[in-house]
């Protein structure tokens, strides 16, 4: 029973297809990483799920209902009380003229999570949960008086206020100092373990994805090109793009090895596989026909003719 399902999701911005027929499920109580470079469409996927954009095609199903259709305010509110989002820029996601307390109080009041008399107390509890102590000193502060890590924790507290079941985290650590990142990632892990929250962790950083995520989805040019359990995908990557990413990540643990220099980048192809211009494994078929996502190992799929060819065995 999945927490949230995305099926056939497509989003166009004028002529640009940012997201192309994306489908996946978020398993409850697990962190799923959505990994890709800028321009891969990963942030767009998160924003569609958050109902900030309307999809061009496809659906997001939550609790058995399509969350992307034009719904009544009551239904939208219900959805928003269950699916929340954390943004990339800690300063940009907070209103500069409002206090920390305001940011956390608003969702509490809108969704009537607690009676009015208990709102202040709940704000302090939430601040303590995310490690912002002493809460009575943090609550009246304005965003510019906090550090980047503190701001991001406020954003997390705000998301937690409605007691959601799914949290979409869009590159929550990429604008934070390196030594602060682990703290925020550990907080996510703690929330997953203690509260059974489901996370969609959007990132371009494979290392942090490995650190927090149970499952991994790799996106390229608007499509999912590989998916599976994190360790499995990283130890045995199927799609050539995943392999390329993995070899490009700086890692202290590896020696200075030669990196297979990909051929000069040209525009992605329109017919056939989108990765063909950069792919060391490309065969003739790749230029003619676009591959589909096929399961090559148990629970691991990839979109590649060579490493995950379409199975000829008819599905039973």
């Amino acid at each position, binding site marked *: 029973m999945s927490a949230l399902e995305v099926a056939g999701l497509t989003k166009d911005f004028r002529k640009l297809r940012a997201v192309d027929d994306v489908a996946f499920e978020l398993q409850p109580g697990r962190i799923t990483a959505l990994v890709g470079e800028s321009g891969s469409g990963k942030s767009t996927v998160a924003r569609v799920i958050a109902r900030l954009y309307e999809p061009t095609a496809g659906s997001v199903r939550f609790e058995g209902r399509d969350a992307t259709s034009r719904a009544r305010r009551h239904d939208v509110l219900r959805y928003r009380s269950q699916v929340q989002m954390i943004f990339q820029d800690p300063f940009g996601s907070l209103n500069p*003229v409002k206090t920390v307390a305001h940011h956390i109080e608003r969702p509490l009041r809108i969704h009537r999570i607690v009676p009015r008399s208990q709102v202040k107390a709940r704000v302090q509890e939430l601040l303590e949960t995310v490690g912002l102590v002493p809460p009575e000193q943090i609550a009246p502060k*304005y965003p510019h008086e906090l550090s980047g890590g503190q701001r991001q924790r406020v954003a997390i507290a705000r998301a937690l206020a409605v007691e959601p079941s799914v949290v979409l985290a869009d590159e929550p650590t990429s604008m934070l100092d390196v030594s602060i990142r682990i703290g925020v990632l550990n907080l996510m892990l703690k929330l997953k373990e203690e509260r059974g929250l489901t996370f969609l962790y959007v990132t371009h950083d494979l290392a942090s994805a490995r650190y927090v995520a149970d499952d991994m989805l790799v996106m390229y040019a608007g499509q999912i090109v590989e998916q599976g359990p994190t360790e499995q995908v990283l130890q045995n990557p199927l799609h050539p793009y995943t392999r390329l990413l993995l070899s490009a990540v700086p890692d202290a643990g590896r020696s200075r090895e030669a990196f297979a220099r990909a051929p000069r980048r040209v525009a992605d192809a329109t017919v056939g596989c989108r990765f063909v211009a950069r792919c060391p494994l490309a065969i003739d078929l790749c230029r003619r026909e676009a591959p589909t996502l096929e399961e090559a190992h148990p629970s691991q799929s990839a979109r590649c003719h060579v490493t995950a060819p379409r199975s000829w065995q008819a599905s039973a």
Partner: protein
Amino acid sequence: MSQLEPTVLELPVAAPPRARTLRRVRVPGWLLLLLRNPKSRTGLLMIGTIVLVALIAPLISVSDPNGFSITAARQAPSWHHLFGTTDQGSDIFSQVVVGARRSLLLGLAAGALATALATVLGITAAYSGGVVDDVVNFLINVFLTIPPIPLLVVVSGYLKARGMGTMILVLAAVLWAFEARILRGQALSLKNRDFIHAAKVSGESTWRIVFGELMPNMISRIAAAFVLVFYIALLTDAGLEFLGLGDQSKTSWGVTLYWAQTNSTVLQGEWWPFLFPGAALALTVLGLVLVLAGIDEVSNPRLRVFRPKRGVLRTLLVGARA
């Protein structure tokens, strides 16, 4: 981890001052800020004085502002006529003091109405986008391209009612579009910031996002729009009177200035019909602009400066930084 987050022991500067009770009067935090900022304090004093003068005008104006007197015409300022007299013999001091009422009221009302229109339409258009934005944009462009004087002439031909109300409406109608465009532009740049998206994801209604999250970030600009409209309203006041929209029997700064200009008084070396009403207008606007500086601090917590509490008298004598 908790004890290593910086705990703040010094006064949080950006928090607004708690409302204080001065002799059983609750003074709100924002007013305190305005009073503590030296610029806005000066501005408030200036405006306060002018408003006070306008209020007690009937008490201090010795002559009828519209009174004729051939013998007293074109007299320079003297003890009898503090600001001199016009070419018709009317006492300019009375005109300025009594005229203050109409001018201030006109500026305030027209400014408020035009700014309110510009704010609501501009921000709503920016945030809603789509058809709403197209419609409002079209309206703005129409109102911007229509030359004001012909518009006023046409309108005055249709309107039966005369007087303040009509003038206020007409002024607001002519002046809202300019500011609406500017406010729309600012709202457009703000609406794609993540905190607006975050408010949406939290479940805030559109109305609350526009007025509760977006607009508070625009207060400085809105206040500045008000001051500009105020100023222009006062200047065009005379033109409207001339077109017959106003009430001929009432006087105002604009009217006084208008007659001073048409009678070529300066050419004859008579500076007083210009200087006094002009100075009144200029000082009022200057006061408003100084208050704007304080409003910046009220609306933007990042600009707030720590000012230790001290008595008003001490501040006046010693200065704020001593």
